[in-house]
């Protein structure tokens, strides 16, 4: 039997052999040969409404499953529409593979129709990228690209394939074995001396704190982190992307750190004598002013990417490697701990602020985002996969939805890409078909990619969408409130009737503006077979507290002005 195949067929053949079942894409001239060949392969193709959506879907797919998400688009505008999604995946270390068509290799460089130098454009926002112009390179490049995307510190990889390479035929060579990349070192190991030094610092600490980052989940190390924390009796704080990596209701969990983290968490950071950073990169939203950050703490940093060491924060010991492996080696060196007095001191810091039982507050007649998210959390028992957009609602989600499972909060942290939620949720749902998936989006960000409602309708996808509709680009309005004398330039926002909009797409729409209607609407949404969009008309000028202004000291947070944790703007009762 002849095994001659076209490059276009090889694209799919390689993806299928790699276990890819789902791709998100949009066709066009330069990728048409691949699309034509797709019909012969067992691949679910999700037709998106904008290529940015395809990349966010691939990203959501990857974050929900740990597997590489795949997006495909044509040359020129198709490929450039992917740029935002690629940059989003890059900053959050999410493994995606983008396949783009390119004009014929003979006309590259001539400004041919829909020609863009896509490998050039995406060079700084991909982990690696390839231009393939020889059909013999198609299979090995896809094999290699998937490997690079998922191994080491994961990230987006782009493969740009010329039209002639898709059309030419060859005998497909498939070597499923290890990829031979002599310069690529995804597996590093620190020296024994460094391990001993780390153990010494940890064992000697009285006020230690684990900073659990995204790397905990990327490494699949949640179990190991938990064992480690319990044995050493060390409290755990999480970055935004670390949420889910450690169970929210675990007694050692403190909550989120950083700009909108809990005040007691940031205070604990400032008073700690040791920080054990696990797969987190000391983002500026985590540290505030680095000069005054954790002044009393020795720092031990475990990360798979040594370029993160001493980048933002100077550390005492750095252990390079995959977190799970490193913890396996480090744990035997760690003495069982007893840090009761430190834990008690943190409880003291928490004090009254810890009481966030907003449901016990009297109903002022106003609806707050916190109510909505709290109720969604309660009704879904903390087991939903929540995909957020970017803004105030994102922070409230992080504060009020308590995640127990890894990969159950999907959010754009590093790039903060508005428009991420809806498409990423589609990807997450296809990766975890049995999961209950909720979108929590703002009225602003939702409008950036709401065209993907059509994708949901066409693909018959069931998710639930909670729009936290405050009539503002709320997070920007908040900055204007604090730092620009309440001059609300370009932040008031007119929106369509989202419930009616959903109906237009053949989905279910609801509108809620009273607190007592939240629970029934969430229950109805959960019971509905179709995707439901709920337009929650919430208090317009609510503010996310606490807040460390950008670049300020972590211990100088702006706190909620009234002792009442939620209703200070609703005193007209």
């Amino acid at each position, binding site marked *: 039997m002849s095994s001659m195949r076209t490059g276009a067929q090889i694209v799919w053949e390689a993806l299928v052999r790699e276990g890819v079942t789902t791709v998100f894409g949009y066709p066009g001239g330069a990728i048409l040969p691949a699309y034509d060949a797709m019909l012969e392969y067992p691949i679910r193709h999700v037709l998106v409404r904008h290529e940015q959506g395809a990349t966010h879907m691939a990203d959501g797919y990857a974050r929900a499953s740990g597997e590489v998400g795949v997006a495909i688009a044509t040359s020129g505008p198709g490929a450039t529409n992917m740029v935002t999604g690629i940059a989003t995946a890059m900053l959050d270390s999410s493994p995606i593979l983008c396949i783009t068509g390119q004009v014929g290799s003979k006309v590259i460089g001539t400004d041919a129709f829909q020609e863009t130098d896509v490998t050039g454009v995406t060079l700084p926002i991909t982990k690696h990228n390839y231009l393939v112009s020889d059909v013999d390179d198609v299979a*090995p490049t896809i094999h290699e690209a998937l490997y690079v995307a998922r191994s080491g510190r994961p990230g987006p990889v782009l493969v740009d394939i010329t039209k002639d390479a898709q059309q030419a035929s060859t005998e497909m060579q498939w070597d499923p074995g290890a990829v031979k990349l002599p*310069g690529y*070192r995804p597996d590093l190991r620190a020296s024994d001396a460094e391990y001993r030094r780390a153990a010494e610092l940890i064992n000697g600490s009285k006020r230690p704190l684990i900073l659990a980052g995204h790397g905990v989940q990327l490494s699949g190390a949640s179990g190991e982190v938990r064992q480690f924390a319990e044995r050493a009796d060390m409290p755990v704080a999480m970055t935004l992307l670390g949420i889910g990596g450690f169970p929210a209701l675990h007694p050692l969990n403190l909550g989120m750190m950083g700009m909108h983290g809990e005040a007691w968490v940031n205070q604990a950071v400032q008073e700690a004598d040791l920080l054990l950073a696990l797969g987190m990169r000391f983002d500026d939203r985590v540290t505030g002013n680095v000069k005054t950050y954790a002044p009393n703490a020795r720092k031990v940093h475990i990360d798979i*990417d040594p*370029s993160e060491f001493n980048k933002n924060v100077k550390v005492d010991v750095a252990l390079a490697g995959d977190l799970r492996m490193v913890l396996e080696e480090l744990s035997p060196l760690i003495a069982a701990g007893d840090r009761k007095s430190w834990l008690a001191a943190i409880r003291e810091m928490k004090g009254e602020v810890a009481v966030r039982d907003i449901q016990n507050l009297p109903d002022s007649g106003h609806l707050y985002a916190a109510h909505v998210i709290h109720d969604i959390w309660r009704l879904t028992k903390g087991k939903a996969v929540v995909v957020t957009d970017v803004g105030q609602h994102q922070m409230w989600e992080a504060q009020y939805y308590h995640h127990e499972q890894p990969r159950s909060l999907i959010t754009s942290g590093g790039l903060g890409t508005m428009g991420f939620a809806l498409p990423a949720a589609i990807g997450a749902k296809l990766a975890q078909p049995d999961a209950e998936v909720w979108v929590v989006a703002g009225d602003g960000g939702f409008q950036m990619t709401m065209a993907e409602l059509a994708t949901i309708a066409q693909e018959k996808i069931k998710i639930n969408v909670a729009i936290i509709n405050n009539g503002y680009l709320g997070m920007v309005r908040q900055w204007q409130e604090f730092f620009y004398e309440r001059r609300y330039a370009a932040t008031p926002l007119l929106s369509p009737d989202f419930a009616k909009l959903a109906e237009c797409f053949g989905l279910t729409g609801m509108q809620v503006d009273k607190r007592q209607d939240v629970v029934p609407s969430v229950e109805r949404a959960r019971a509905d077979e179709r995707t439901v969009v709920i337009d929650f008309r919430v208090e317009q000028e609510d503010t996310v507290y606490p807040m460390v202004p950008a670049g300020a000291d972590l211990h100088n947070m702006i706190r909620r002005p009234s002792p009442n944790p939620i209703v200070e703007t609703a005193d007209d009762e």
Partner: protein
Amino acid sequence: MQTRHTFSVYVEDKPGVLNRIASLFRRRAFNIESLTVGHTETPGVSRMTILVNSDVQGARRLEANLYKLVNVLRVHDITAEPAVYRELVMIKVATRTLENRIHVLQLAEVFRARVVDVAPDSVIVETTGTEDKIEGLLEVLRPHGVLELVRTGRVGMVRGPQSVMVEPAPQRPRSERPAAADDGSISYSV
């Protein structure tokens, strides 16, 4: 404290690699003082000598960042090692009078530089050496009028018998195929 660091960087000899390196320096806000690139003893492997100003931690991070580029095979910070550094320079000097010309030729000889071109009103002087030697030569030639100057940037090699072994990526098999029919059209994009 900022000091000069010299890196020997072995890279796969592939299209776009120089671009990736340059892009990395720009993106991470490192300033390249000089960069040279050429083939090595191993086919498929190029070697760069890159000179940057950085503190020690910055240099470590730069090294780690270079290693993140898939096509980078080996990074060697040779700053602290006993190494030989050389740079090649060509200087076109004005020699309008005979006196000028004689003087320039004498200076070249003192610096063991070679005169590689003589024209009625100018000569081209070429020399190889450390930056110090080149600066010295330039200083004495400048009063005569330097018309043009080109420098290659520093190359460096660690002294002694040791060598850095790098392995290039294996070549992929290529099938025998008739050349694809050239249909002459630009593209059929929609």
